[in-house]
Every structure is written in C-alpha cells, then in structure tokens.
C-alpha cells in the first residue's frame, strides 16, 4: 500500500468517524440529560464558531468571560459604550447557559447604559438592544428559562410601559410604529396573521415571527384570555412574554421555582392593570402622535386576574387584594366618569359585597360602602384626584371622562351640569400642569383644546361614537352640519364647541 493511498484511506476513515461520533453525541447528550449527569444542558442551536469555542475552551471559558466582564465594567465607568454590544455578545456566548449572565447584560444595556445618553433615540437603541439580546439570543439557547421570559416581560412593562424614564413616550411611539408595520397601520387583526391570505399579510406574519419572535396563534390565545389588548402598546407584549413563560413552566414543571411563577403572574396582572388605565391607543392626527385612554373593556378580566393571583400567592395575598380593591375603585370611578353608570353600579355593588368593611376613601375611615352612595364616592374622588394625582394616564382618563359627561349632559339638555363638568375638566388639567411642570416631557399632557377635540370627535364618530340621535343633537347644538351618509368622523381640524364650557 503506497503512502498516498494510505492517506486517502485515513482521511475517509476520519470523515466516517466524525459522522458517527456526531450521531453518538446526540445519544450521549440525551442520556446525560435524562440521567441528570450534568447540571448544564448541552448547547443547542449554536453557530459553529460558538459550538467550537465552548468545547475548545472548556473550563477556561469562565476565566475569559471574567476578563471580558472586567473590561466591560472598566469601560462603562469611563463612559465608553461603543464596545459594550461586542463584549456582551462575547460574554453571553462564552456562558450561553448561565441565565444570570443574559439577565445582567441585557439589564445593563436597557437600564444602565440607555439613560447615560441625552438623546432619546440613542436611549431607545440600547433599550432595544437589551430586549433583542434576551429575545433573539438568550431564548435561542435557553428556550425553557422562565427568568428570561420574566425579564423580557419586565422590560416591556416597566422600562417602556411606565413613565420613570424621560424617554418613555419615545419608546412607546417607536414601538407603536414598529407594531404598525406588523399590523398594517390599522387595528390589529391577529386572524389575518395566523392565516395570511395575501402577500402583504404573509410578509407581515413573517416579520412578526422572524423579527419579533412572536407567534400570532399564541398572541390570539393571550388576547382571548387577558384581553382585548392593544398590541401596539408595550403592556400587551409584557403579558405575551409572561404568558409564554408560564406555558414553558407548565411544560417543564421539574425545573421551575414557585417564586418565579408568582413573578410571572405578577407581571401579567400588573400589566393588565396598566392596560385598563391607559390601554387604548388613539391616533392624534393633529399632533401627529399617539394618545392613550383607559381600556374599560378589560375590567372584568383584570379583576379576575387579581383574584386568581391572590388565591395562588398566599404570601402576598392581602397586598394583592388591596390592589384589587383599588382597581375596582378606579374602575367605578372611570366607568362613571365615562357615563357608563350601570357598569359603574355593578362594580360598586361588587365592591360592597367583597369588601364591606373597607372604607372606599382612604383618608376617611367612616366611608364604608354601605354608608355611602356611588355618586358621593365619585365626587369625592374627583376632588381627591385633582388635588393629589401626579399620574398622567390617570389624569388623562379623568379629564376625558369629565368631558364625556359634559357632552352627554349637553345632549340631554342639562346645560349647567355640562358646563360644570367641563369647568371641572379644565381645572383638573390646570392643577395637574402646575403640579408637574418640573417633570417636563416625561409626563406632559396634551392641551385642553386637543383633549376636548379628541373626545368630541370620538363621540360624534358614526362607527364608534354615541347613538345616532345623540350625535345629531350634539351636531345641532354645536353648529356642525348634519352627518353625511357614509361619513366616518368629523373633518380633521374641527374645533370642539365651547358652548357648554368656559
């Protein structure tokens, strides 16, 4: 046998052994997982470079990861962030199954680094990068780690959803724009993404699944269970990722801690509460931005979610029920101020039955439900809110509700009451603006005229507005021409009437 032939034989043999060993490796990985021989799962879905690195470096991976981590900390202290994405990538890839590494790196980007930038678009880049690190990479290597789902949900709920970051409005705006690309700049329709019929729908479904890593069928399931949700707002996505985490937990019950489940459920019911308070997205074509309003349709589900959470979480049972009572109080108030008196009455009775011994006004212990009327409670709440609240969403909901009542009163001939509501709304806004002026853009609200116009246009909208008779009365009283057949809304720029107000 000459040497050339021998070499060919050896190369072929090496190739065969490589293929066989790769087959055996699959069996070995499965066996070591089944037998619980190693704590760490074998690396799956990894690109070749990463797979090679993790095997070749062995135990030294941790050491290199530490060095990179130290460098990342040093650079961060020096405010040099341009290497952070690269370092985070290396650190997480060196320890792909170390969940805390993913969590810390993504948190660092979304929270610590983002606020270091003065320009809001720069901040958004880092928040988005933190989300992307978990969603696009962390979950690929750790598809069953519910801590990653929890963190992802938290970014949507807290970083983007709440108003602690001055740039939160930009985050919401950009996210709503991105989601508009998925939903086709209209009210989200999940069915068309589950069963796309056109090329456009197919493209949008692919965008949702491949870029945002979301499953439209599961979105629909979430929407039916917790919604209706506004999928262009971050809270809906917080609920989605938390719900997906819960599903993964059900699929892997042996690997789950009870506390983690509670945290996931907490994200869901807290996000639902946020959806209730400002989960309706309203396009403001005049200011070219989105506005938010309360989503009153999900009140029953929010209440049920809190009750279920209280049932499941014995340690914080009382706290959750306290929050539940607060939500019902808010619900009564919002429903009443949106002229949905019978719904408000239902929840008033519900509260009276469930919490008969609890005062409905915190500052007045004598205000037990049995000793107070719903109307009396609402009036007291208006006084309390106008003088105390600092929450933009809550105040916006109050003002909108007062204006709805004003126009409803106007339509039924109660001019004085209409004027009173409108005056109250204006006073509420003035008080809020004077109390929050030092917070700047973070909790800025539209002008009174803008809110007034938005509410009025919504009420006279033939599709979503008040009944036709009332619309006709309102149009007549405010000097607008009669509604044309097929018309959809008041023409843009129509100023809301001032007859009923100041």
């Amino acid at each position: 046998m000459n040497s050339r032939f021998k070499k060919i034989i050896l190369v072929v043999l090496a190739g065969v052994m490589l293929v066989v060993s790769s087959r055996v490796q699959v069996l070995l990985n499965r066996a070591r997982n089944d037998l619980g021989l190693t704590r760490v799962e074998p690396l799956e879905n990894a690109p070749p470079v990463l797979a090679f690195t993790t095997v070749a470096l062995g135990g030294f991976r941790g050491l290199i990861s530490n060095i990179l981590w130290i460098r990342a900390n040093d650079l961060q202290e020096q405010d040099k962030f341009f290497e952070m994405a690269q370092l985070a990538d290396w650190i997480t890839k060196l320890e792909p199954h170390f969940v805390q590494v993913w969590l810390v790196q993504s948190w660092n980007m979304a929270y610590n680094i983002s606020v270091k930038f003065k320009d809001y678009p720069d901040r958004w880049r880092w928040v988005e990068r933190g989300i992307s690190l978990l969603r696009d990479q962390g979950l690929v290597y750790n598809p069953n780690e519910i801590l990653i789902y929890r963190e992802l949900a938290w970014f949507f709920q807290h970083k983007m959803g709440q108003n602690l970051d001055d740039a939160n409005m930009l985050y919401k705006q950009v996210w709503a724009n991105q989601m508009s690309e998925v939903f086709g700049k209209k009210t989200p329709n999940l069915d068309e993404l589950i069963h796309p019929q056109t090329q456009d729908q197919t493209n949008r479904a692919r965008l949702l699944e491949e870029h945002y890593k979301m499953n439209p069928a599961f979105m629909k399931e979430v929407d039916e269970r917790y919604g209706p949700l506004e999928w262009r707002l971050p809270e809906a996505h917080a609920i989605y990722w938390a719900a997906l985490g819960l599903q993964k937990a059900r699929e892997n019950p042996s690997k789950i801690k009870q506390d983690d489940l509670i945290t996931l459920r907490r994200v869901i019911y807290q996000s639902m509460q946020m959806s209730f308070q400002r989960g309706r997205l309203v396009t403001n074509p005049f200011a070219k931005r989105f506005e938010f309003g309360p989503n009153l349709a999900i009140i029953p589900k929010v209440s049920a979610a809190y009750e279920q959470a209280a049932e499941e979480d014995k340690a914080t049972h009382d706290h959750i029920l306290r929050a539940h009572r607060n939500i019902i109080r808010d619900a009564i108030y919002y429903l009443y101020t949106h002229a949905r008196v019978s719904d408000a009455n239902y929840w008033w009775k519900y509260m009276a039955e469930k919490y008969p011994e609890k005062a409905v006004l915190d500052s007045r212990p004598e205000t037990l439900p049995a000793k107070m009327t719903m109307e009396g409670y609402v009036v007291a709440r208006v006084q309390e809110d106008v003088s105390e609240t600092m929450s933009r969403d809550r105040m916006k909901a109050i003002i909108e509700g007062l204006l709805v009542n004003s126009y409803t009163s106007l339509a039924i001939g109660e001019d004085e009451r209409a004027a009173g509501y409108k005056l109250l709304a204006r006073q509420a806004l003035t008080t809020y603006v004077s109390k929050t002026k030092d917070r700047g853009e973070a909790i800025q609200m539209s002008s009174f005229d803008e809110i007034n116009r938005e509410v009025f246009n919504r009420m006279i909208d033939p599709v979503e507005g008040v009944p036709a008779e009332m619309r006709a009365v309102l149009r007549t009283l405010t000097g607008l021409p009669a509604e044309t057949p097929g018309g959809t809304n008041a023409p843009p720029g129509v100023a809301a009437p001032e007859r009923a107000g100041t």
Partner: protein
Amino acid sequence: MQRTLAIAWLTWKAAFRFRLFLVISSLLLVSVVALPLVIKDDGTARGFTQILLTYTLGTITVLLGLSTLWLACGTLARDIEDCQIQVVATKPIARWQIWVGKWIGLMSLNAALLAISGAGVYGLLTWRAARLPANQQAVLRNEVLVARGSAHERSYDNDIRQETEKLLRERLEKGPADRVDLAEVRRQIREQVRAEIENVRPGAYRPWEINLGLARHYLKDQPLYVRVKFNSAERSPSGTFEALWQFGVPEKTEVYRPGPMSLAPDTFHEFVIPPNLFDENGVLTIVFVNPNNSTLLFPLADGMEVLYREGGFTLNFIRGLGIIFCWMALLCSIGLAAASLLSFPVAAFFALGLLTMTLASGTMASAVEQGTIAEFNSETSTRGSSPADILVIPAFKGALAIINLAKSFSPVDSLSTGRSITWAQLGAAFFQIVGVLGGGFSLAGIWILHRRELAVAQGTQ
C-alpha cells in the same frame, strides 16, 4: 555606521528568510480586514468607527508587540546559543554595534509592518466613511475622524488654598482644640471650599469662563463641543436630571440657549454648540441653571470641557502610530537586553514577565493608594496592614513611576474619541519611552553583551 547597518540588514534578511515578515504582515492585514466583519458595534457609524479603530489598532499593537519581544529575544539569544555570534564578533565590529544593529534591524522591520497595517486601517476607515450618508460623514468628521483640542476653566487651586488657610486661621482663633489634628481639619475645610465651587444648589446657577486661547483665531464659524459631567448624592426617579444651559453673554456675544436636557449623573455628555459664541478675547461663557430639587456637583477636574477642532485625522493618526512605534522600541530594547544575558526561553519568559507586571499595574496602583497590600475587609469596610508594606509599597511606588513613563500615553483611546495627539505628546513619548526607559534597557543590554563571554561552551550544544 556601515557596520551597524550591515547587522541591521542581516536581521532583515533573516526575517525574510524565515518568512517572518510575510507571516506577520499577513496576520496584521487579515486582522484589519477580518475584524470589521465580525465585530458587533452599537448601531451607529460613530460607534462602528470607534470600535474599529480600537480593535484594529489594539490587535496591531498586541501582535507587533509580541512578535517584537519574541524576535528581539530570539535573534540575539539564538545567535549566542548557536555560536553564530562568535563569527560576527571576531569581525572588526564592536559589541555595541552588533546590539544597536539588531535593534535598528528589528525597529525598521517594525516600522515597515506598522506602516503597512496602519495604512490598511486608514484606508479601511476612509473607504467605509466615504460610503456613509452625508450627515453621518459629518458626524464622523466632527467627532471621531478629527484631532480635537480641549479647553478647561482656569485652575482654582490657588483660590482654594488661600481660602482654606484663611478659614483655618479663623477656626483656630475660635477653637484651639482643633490643633490636635491640624491636617485633618485643613483637609475638611479644603473639601468644603472645593464643594462651594463645584456644587450647584437647587434653583442656583453656575457660570464657567473658558478661555480658548490662540485657538480662537481659527475657530470662527466653527461649531464647538461641550463635554460635561456632574454627580449627585441623590437619585432621581427617572435616573436623570434636567439641565438648562446658556452659552455666550447677552449683548456681548451671540447667545445660545438649548432646550431642557435630560442628563444622567456620573457620566460624560457631549453636545455641539453653534459657532461664534465666544468674545473677542476667546472667552466662552457657559451658564448652567439647576432646576432640580437636588444639588448637582460639577467636578473641577473634568466637570466642564470645551472641545474644538485642532487638526485633521491623518496627521493625528500618524502621531498615534508614532507612539505605538515608541512602545515597540521599548519592547525591542527589553527583549534584546534580556537576550544579552539569558538564553532564549529564559529571556522570553523574563520579558513577558515584565510585560505582565506592566499590565497588572492597576493592582499596584490600588495597593499604593490604600497604603497596604493587605486585603480589604468588606464587612468592616477597612483594610488591614501587612509587615511587608514597609518594603513593598515604596517598591510599588517606584515601579509605578517607571511604568507610567510608558503607560501614560493612550494613542488608541485618543484616536477613537477624536482627541488630538500633539507633536509635543509624541515628543514626550519618544523621550520617556524610547529615550529614558528604552535607553536604560539598551545601555544595560549593551554593557552586558560587552562584558559577556560569548565563546563559553553552550548548554544546548
């Protein structure tokens, strides 16, 4: 000189004979070309350029540094071990000429490799920059691919010293008991006086007058960049504080008042201001108004800085490479000096040990700052003490003083942040790194080689 150059030429020939030049230059070029394909940037053209500069120049420095050290140790030690030096030394050439010839040979090799790889980086940067949209190109030209000088407020050291002494005298007159720890009382008063200058209380304002000096003559119609940093003892709910600024003096210069800014504490913020806001003497007046409910502290050292265009990127880049070249010269001297005395493996080990010690100087600096090498007790927030401190701490101080002669320059950092590397800095680098440190090692190496018995029986034979 001819003899020295002959040795240098022999070194070059050896480098080509062993394909060393080809391998190193290929490695350097591959790293320059391949790095941009694999690195992850922060998503901006500025960030990409910064990370590209940092990683390519960093890789070049590491690769060249290691090869220089390795070659320097190898070329002389191998010659001695293989007895080839005996053939050379018997020629009419002095030992120092052999040593210097090797040094020149290696450094000219380094110069060629650095020029090739530097040209590669420069070409890549300018090529990529030219493909960017015009606005991104402008950002790069103004913030990264530029040499920016900086101006600060005048020093307050004298004012602080005088005010401290005055207050100290007053306090001593009132309470003689303070005499028990005069140094501590003085330190406390000095901190109070400093804080008075650095703090901006809620609702208060703080002016800075920054003299641009001679730069004012060429800064007309050019935008300036303001770099600020402040600290706060309190956290705000949003993590940021509002900042109101005014640049210029009403009725004296043009005035610029940007809208409120949301700025995070403990971090540097850089923003552009329009041209021509300074007066005829080149003084730019900046006023900060604090509308927050917390006191903000602008450190005197780096709280306020004005950056301006001082020159182009090309020359700055060349000066940066010049400093890297100085480092290579030092490594070459260290390697040759070690090889003058030691065998190749020991010399390489010694040289790498020195390099490691230099890289670990942070630990030494920390020990010097704490005054002890004892461990920090996190429970009591105190440090212990060690009997070795008496010897080790002064030794660390001495080592740090020497190391900092080379480490105090950071060309990669300056280039990636668009900071100017002046000719004076390059001159200082040459003097400190090549002249003082490299010269010291070179003299030691030449002296050792001069004294060494080259024809002694070698263990490896």
